[in-house]
């Protein structure tokens, strides 16, 4: 239900645990092409006329985030499979018909390619 999400010590503890267990795993490579993809994913997620995900989710260094949805962090752990993350963004109503999260792909708010870029970016968080 609509209990507002807040960052709690539980989230932070979960995050720390994740950092400790995956510290050695290594993150996305630092080559310029993939950096550019991550940057456009970030832009798409934050822009008001695109994903505007900040309206409801806190993530990264986004300013004035809303708290209708949970903070987007540790996405690799929450969504080991990128396809599941893609599906959540494409049509969140498939999982929860009453969700407040707009069906970004199904309603043509974002294109497949745009969602793909957002997924890559979120996976890096």
């Amino acid at each position, binding site marked *: *239900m*609509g209990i*507002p999400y807040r960052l709690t010590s539980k989230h932070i503890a979960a995050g720390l645990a994740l950092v400790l267990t995956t510290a050695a795993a290594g993150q996305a490579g630092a080559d310029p092409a993939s950096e550019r993809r991550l940057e456009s994913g970030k832009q798409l997620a934050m822009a008001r006329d695109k994903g*505007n995900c*900040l*309206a*409801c989710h806190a993530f990264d260094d986004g300013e*004035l*985030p*809303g*708290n*209708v949805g949970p903070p987007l962090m540790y996405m690799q752990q929450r969504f080991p499979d990128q396809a599941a993350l893609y599906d959540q963004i494409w049509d969140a*109503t498939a999982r929860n018909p*009453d969700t*407040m999260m*707009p*069906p970004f792909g199904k*309603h*043509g*708010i974002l294109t497949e390619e745009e969602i793909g870029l957002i997924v890559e970016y979120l996976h890096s968080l």
Partner: protein
Amino acid sequence: MSEPVTFRLLLTVLAAMLAIPAQAGPEEDREAFRAFFFKRFPDVPPDAYADGIYALDENARRQWEEIEEFPPYEFAVEQGEALFSQAFANGGRYADCFENDGIAVRQNYPRFDPQRGEVVTLELALNHCRTANGEEPYAYDSSELIALSAWMAWTSRGRKIAVSVPNDPRALAAYEEGKRFYYSKRGQLNFACSDCHVTSAGSWVRADHLSASLGHPTHFPVYRSKLGKMISLHSRIYGCIRDVRARPFPEQSVEYRNLEYFLTYMSNGLPANGPGARK
């Protein structure tokens, strides 16, 4: 657990299963609507919901109280009073069209009109009064009509909202239409009114703090500082519907009138406190 207790429990459960569920009607809806918010915000006194987001947001409330010291809607109230007391060309008056000469009746609107078979809002009633007296109706976004509505709201301050759904299948149907509209997902963003103003009331959507729907219609028309002018309830609703990227209906469409009927019924018992001032 001792036997008699278990047995009694079983009986209770059986009785509950057999009991015919109470017929859900407007009054049951209203009680459930209020109860939801009272449970979510146990510290907010019921009447405070008439103040919209200022019931839930202490900081915003302080700024608002400062604004209220020099009410930005005062001019509209004065203009409305002057217009209201002017006779029409045929000698008729607005006062003749309303109960109690139009003083302190705002809280009874919208009402179901059995002759017309539809919901009549205060704005519509004012225009009906004009046409019945041979005058042109006002545009719904005209400053004159909004001023008249502001004046009538002013004379009702402190009265309890008292909208009724009479025992007429058409009235109940109008109420149900409004209720369905309120809970329906719409637009490209797929939001229902209830998503923002029930489920997520009190949450933040970026810099916007979401108010509870309970109390939404008590204080219209409203001076919006963002726009620098007075607006009607329907114009406010129009804005919310445009924001979810749905096709908005025109002011005073049957859709919005039925929605206002439902919404105002939900606020029955709260003090009328229009006109208001909002961001």
